[in-house]
């Protein structure tokens, strides 16, 4: 069960693994991110919350340079991403190499349709990281066991439910042994009854000390699992803190309004999920 806990995860929890400083991004005249700064410590689960259009997903996609930021510095484990310490923008090759250290789970799964479940998980470790196939296969099978999909290993993604696809997506990301896992609204495209199985896998990862940044509208998940919550609105970080403080005593008016809207009734956690289109 603990096979993914790499040695560095056991190291001190206070050391910072990701730092983002002064990140800005515009699409045309629309400023989506305005001078965003935050850090993530090893083993932390940071949830990015905020209304639709607040820039959460763009921020996440800037971390691995799927979107190219206009300004700002991103450092992963001491190594700059996107722009070298000399200030030069990285080429495709360097960028690709950096990206292999950051796992990503997508809202719409983005599995490779021509490959089976097992092949999806093995693809990048074998063909990008160039690790021995036998070793990768054993690890991939163990990961599929872990997300409960070993029996589906020879099935093509098109034959899976959304929840199963997303669990494959998580196994695929873990197979890269990333230092950091990014989740871009991982349950937003799922039918409500399938959300739980994906969140359960994510809870497991968090409790095992995987470092994760999660964009989500699952307030119950953020409240229970996040080590820290970052609340964004209109491209800026409005409030950040522990889930206890954020959900029970938000200090800014915008956060209060957001919580009123998304956590309508202070009821049992199971009713707090908000289906998202």
């Amino acid at each position, binding site marked *: 069960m603990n096979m993914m806990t790499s040695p560095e995860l056991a190291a001190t929890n206070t050391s910072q693994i990701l730092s983002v400083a002064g990140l800005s991004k515009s699409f045309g005249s629309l400023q989506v991110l305005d001078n965003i700064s935050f850090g993530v410590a090893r083993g932390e689960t940071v949830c990015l919350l905020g209304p639709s259009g607040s820039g959460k997903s763009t921020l996440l996609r800037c971390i*691995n340079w*799927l979107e190219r930021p206009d300004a700002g510095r991103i450092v992963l484990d001491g190594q700059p991403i996107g722009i070298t310490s000399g200030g030069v923008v990285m080429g*495709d*090759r360097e*960028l*690709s*190499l950096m*990206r*292999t250290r*950051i796992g*990503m789970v*997508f809202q*719409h*799964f*983005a*599995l*490779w*349709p*021509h*490959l089976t479940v097992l092949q999806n998980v093995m*693809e*990048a470790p074998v*063909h*990008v*990281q160039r690790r021995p196939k036998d070793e990768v296969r054993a690890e991939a099978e163990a990961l599929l066991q872990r997300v409960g999909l070993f029996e589906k290993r020879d099935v*093509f*993604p*098109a034959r899976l439910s959304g929840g199963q696809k997303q669990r494959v997506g998580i196994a*695929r990301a873990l197979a*890269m042994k990333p230092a950091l896992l990014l989740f871009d609204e991982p349950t937003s495209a799922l039918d409500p009854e399938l959300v739980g199985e994906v969140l359960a896998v994510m809870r497991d990862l968090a409790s095992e000390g995987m470092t994760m940044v999660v964009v989500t509208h699952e307030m119950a998940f953020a409240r229970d699992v996040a080590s820290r919550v970052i609340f964004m609105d209109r491209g800026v970080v409005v409030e950040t803190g522990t889930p206890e403080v954020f959900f029970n005593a938000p200090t800014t008016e915008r956060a209060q309004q957001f919580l009123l809207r998304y956590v309508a009734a202070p009821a049992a956690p199971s009713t707090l999920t908000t289906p998202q289109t």
Partner: protein
Amino acid sequence: MIHDFGLVWLDRELLLTGLGNTVLLSVLAGFCALALGALLSTVLMNRSRFIAIPGQAFVDTMRCTPFLLFAYIVYYGLPSLGVNFDNWGAGLAALIVYHTAYMAEILRGAWAAQPRAPIEAGMAFGYSGLRMFRRIVLPPLMLSAGPVVGNQVIQIVKDSAFLTIIALPELTHAASSIQSRRYIPFAAFIAAVLLYWAICLVVEAGVAAVGRMAEARR
């Protein structure tokens, strides 16, 4: 009439040699055109217009040129520019270059219709350049374009018949020489048509196999 087909039978060796050459030409041209077309499709899909536009110009030129004329240019025209081919080289080169343009255009269309998400996932997992194309972009492309690529292969088989005009000993050439030797045009040409039909059945079986693979993944 039966007697005429009996005469064709006497020349079966000639006809089968022609069939063999047609198959050889078509297979070689099909594979090369598909491979080069795949490469050319990356040019057509390039974000830089300075790269994409010359590629598109080549494709448009080929699509507006009758193959027979193009074969004439390669075999009779190029030697006046100092480029010399024998009839095999000229015929094969003409088939490949001409159909590369079609294959590229087929793959470009299929590519433009592909969902963006799996390619983006490829980027996030460290793919770029040729490796991205080969491992992530091309396989689903081939599956979805399979039937249209199959049609194009059939077109290659039929276009190879034009190469009879540069004395390439393919199937049409063989049928033609049988009819002129024995004065049995109907039987000789119908025999050739049946053999072309057999080739197309094989191509269609291949397309069906690709279609089943695509269906399993859809």
